[in-house]
């Protein structure tokens, strides 16, 4: 007998965020009305978060295959072959909403979640990167969020002993009510020892291990279940608290379990906890699972089946072991001081059957729950204001008057300023692999036991995506790849975290669809497969959506670790070269925002052909040892990139003397425009001709623009056809001071 259930009222169904049609489908699947536990299980599994109901039809378009791909989307994380019998396993996840409610715990549990996604695959996590978006630092609330999120990431990642080697932060008031916290994690696994979330083998035991289950994160739906809880009304914590110490034990226990021949499948309990892990594992294997809740370790007495199935308590895992290996699994979990219990068996009938105290409390076909959720092809169309955004009359904007002042204020604008204050709170060196620490175009970690290294970067210019979602997405792919090649790495795989507003709005859906198209086209052209990803919709408050932010995490391989490259100038006397062409690309630039308070215009145009040629050339000249440094031009344009080459080295700062011609450009476009496919190189004097000739041979515009040396930053721009030139001459120490301490000063109010 099922326990008495309330009548399925309209209210109850609505509280569970299910539409009438969705509810009808549930009744059809079950052949009867669901009980409250079943309703809760459907509601979480068919939520946008778990079922990708608005995005799935579009995500299918992304290129996910390639010669290196070992595991594409669909599992806990993607995996790419890096040779030597090893795989890079990586993924990115968002924890936006929880981080707004409680920044420390929200960000911390975000880190915990993505780490579990990686180590459930059998990979030891070796690097984290964090991609963050906040509103402007002039608001106290935003400063509070920044401090909380950064210390939450530090608190969890540092304790786990996984270095946070890089990331990205952008400040824009559009994120004030909807900050973004996206975390990327990469681990290394043996290619033939990748573990999947599958419940194969009828009769195999299903084992719960990790932390106890509490009433964490049971959201609005909780109210509905209260009426069945004969305990007195309690405040239910919807905020989950992370316990990185237990997660560290969980990590080590998992890797020890996986080293033996014990497991059939394993999956972490993320969103929708016990429900999602059990039905997804069963569904992947075409099997069912009989779960008995009686032995599920609990933190509190009196928990209902509804609560147990929906709890999002952290640091928990579900494994399917080989029959007969239970004892060994339990021994290992106990060695690591973890709670552990056999909670079920794999069955052949395809049903997820949940029992509690001898009674069946839920009985649902696992596949229906996991895979037969609704799919929507939501309508999409551009917003009415799109033309207003892109049409910008540049003639109405005066050209820059005081180039030195403009340079300094851009350098200290928080989006461009050094992120030192952030990454010094992250342990970015533990595991002793970090060859390039935060502060260069990409982070680089060596792979012990091989000659190889991996480079990683997270990128997305969401203003470009606002102005032109398709171009913006292509530009994000190009920039990520450029950051990798400037570090000497060949791009081999991509993960994404697609942060958008409410998909039920046609203009948001339009942004989403176009961004997917852009990613697809760029990835296909560059032959970079997307092996995992995540979608975060409903980033809107009071009808105001965030800018479309398809965050990308890209991974590159450096076959020979000694070919790793960094962005800063190395030696006085080296010659500075500029690769690529500078055009009139002020649209969507950071300069327009900081100096003209406009986020308008068309983003720079990308020629994928030119970009790809640049990548090939970069890899060639870095690998043959002709260059001393390489840095791509991105936010803030040429002059900011040059300044970064001078001031971003870990211990020494170097001056530079640069000479540029204007030709037909505006001065602000030359100095601060964000034309794509440009890189600044420094080379030894004896190498200049060789590199220049080789560039021209490869069809890449290349010019000698100056030399490294002295303690001043000098840019001379000769007068052009339309504009006057300028003379910038500033002490490098001054540039450094403005750039390096800006965020810290703002946060401390000094």
């Amino acid at each position, binding site marked *: 007998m099922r326990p008495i259930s309330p009548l399925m009222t309209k209210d109850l169904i609505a509280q569970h965020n299910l539409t009438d049609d969705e509810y009808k489908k549930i009744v059809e699947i079950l052949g009867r009305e669901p009980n409250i536990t079943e309703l809760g299980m459907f509601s979480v599994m068919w939520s946008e978060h778990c079922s990708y109901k608005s995005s799935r039809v579009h995500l299918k378009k992304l290129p996910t295959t390639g010669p290196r791909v070992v595991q594409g989307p669909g599992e806990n994380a993607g995996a790419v072959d890096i040779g030597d019998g090893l795989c890079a396993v990586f993924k990115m996840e968002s924890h936006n909403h929880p981080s707004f*409610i*409680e920044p*420390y*715990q929200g960000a911390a549990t975000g880190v915990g979640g993505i780490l579990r996604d990686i180590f459930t695959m059998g990979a030891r996590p070796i690097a984290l990167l964090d991609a963050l978006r906040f509103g402007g630092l002039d608001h106290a609330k935003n400063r509070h969020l920044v401090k909380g999120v950064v210390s939450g990431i530090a608190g969890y990642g540092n304790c786990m002993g996984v270095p946070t080697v890089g990331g990205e932060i952008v400040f824009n008031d559009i994120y004030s009510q909807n900050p973004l916290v996206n975390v990327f994690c990469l681990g290394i696994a043996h290619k033939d020892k990748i573990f999947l979330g599958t419940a194969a083998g009828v009769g195999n035991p299903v084992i719960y291990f990790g*932390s106890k289950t*509490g*009433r*964490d994160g049971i959201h609005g739906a909780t109210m509905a279940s209260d009426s069945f809880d004969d305990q007195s009304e*309690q*405040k*239910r*914590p919807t*905020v*989950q*608290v*992370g*316990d990185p*110490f*237990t997660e560290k034990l969980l990590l080590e226990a998992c890797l020890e379990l996986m080293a033996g021949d014990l497991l059939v499948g394993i999956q972490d309990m993320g969103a929708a906890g016990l429900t999602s892990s059990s039905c997804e594992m069963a569904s992947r294997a075409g099997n069912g699972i009989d779960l008995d809740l009686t032995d599920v370790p609990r*933190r*509190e007495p009196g928990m209902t089946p509804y609560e147990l199935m929906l709890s999002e*308590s*952290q640091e928990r895992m579900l494994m399917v072991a080989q029959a007969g290996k239970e004892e060994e699994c339990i021994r290992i979990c106990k060695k690591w*001081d973890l709670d552990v219990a056999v909670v079920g068996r794999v069955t052949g009938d395809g049903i997820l059957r949940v029992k509690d105290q001898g009674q069946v409390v839920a009985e649902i076909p696992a596949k229906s729950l996991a895979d037969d959720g609704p799919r929507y092809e939501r309508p999409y169309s551009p917003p009415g204001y799109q033309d207003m955004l892109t049409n910008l009359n540049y003639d109405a904007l005066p050209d820059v008057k005081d180039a030195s002042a403009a340079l300094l204020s851009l350098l200290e604008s928080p989006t461009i300023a050094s992120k030192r204050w952030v990454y010094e709170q992250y342990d970015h060196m533990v595991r002793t692999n970090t060859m390039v620490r935060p502060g260069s175009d990409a982070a680089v970690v060596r792979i012990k036991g091989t000659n190889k290294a991996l480079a990683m970067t997270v990128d997305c210019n969401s203003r470009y995506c606002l102005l032109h979602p398709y171009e913006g997405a292509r530009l994000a792919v190009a920039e990520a790849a450029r950051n990798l090649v400037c570090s000497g790495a060949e791009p081999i795989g991509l993960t994404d975290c697609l942060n958008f507003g409410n998909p039920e709005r046609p203009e948001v859906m339009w942004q989403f669809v176009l961004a997917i198209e852009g990613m697809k086209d760029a990835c296909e052209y560059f032959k970079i497969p997307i092996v995992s990803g995540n979608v975060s919709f409903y980033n809107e408050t009071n009808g105001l959506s965030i800018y479309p932010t398809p965050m990308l995490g890209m991974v590159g391989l450096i076959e020979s670790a000694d070919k790793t490259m960094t962005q800063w100038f190395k030696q006085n006397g080296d010659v500075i070269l500029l690769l690529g062409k500078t055009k009139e690309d002020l649209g969507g630039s950071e300069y327009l925002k900081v100096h003209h308070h406009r986020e308008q215009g068309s983003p720079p145009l990308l020629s994928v052909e030119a970009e790809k040629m640049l990548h090939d050339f970069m890899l060639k000249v870095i690998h043959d040892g002709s260059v001393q440094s390489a840095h791509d031009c991105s936010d803030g344009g040429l002059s900011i990139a040059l300044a970064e080459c001078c001031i971003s080295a870990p211990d020494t700062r170097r001056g530079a003397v640069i000479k540029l011609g204007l030709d037909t450009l505006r001065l602000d476009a030359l100095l601060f425009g964000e034309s794509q496919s440009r890189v600044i190189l420094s080379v030894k004097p004896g190498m200049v001709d060789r590199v220049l000739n080789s560039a021209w041979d490869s069809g890449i515009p290349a010019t000698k623009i100056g030399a490294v040396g002295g303690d001043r930053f000098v840019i001379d721009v000769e007068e052009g056809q339309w504009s006057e030139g300028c003379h910038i001459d500033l002490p490098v120490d001054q540039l450094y001071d403005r750039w390096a301490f800006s965020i810290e000063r703002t946060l401390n109010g000094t």
Partner: protein
Amino acid sequence: MKAKIYVTLKQGILDPQGKAIEHALDSLGFKNAGNVRVGKYMEVDLEEKDKVKAEAEVKQMCEKLLANTIVEEYRYELTA
């Protein structure tokens, strides 16, 4: 006046510190100690002499800064 402020995690919220300490006490042989909860204790000197006003002030301090009311609850005592 002096305010003594106690900030503790709300009921039902995971308390990893408490759990670890409980475990440690147990392995130290304090077998009959259980249910350890860890919180913060703060003392603040106030210039305010009026008890009612002081109380209002402390309450505000707790709400605004000293406690994270999403996961924590607080109580306080005022002494002269």
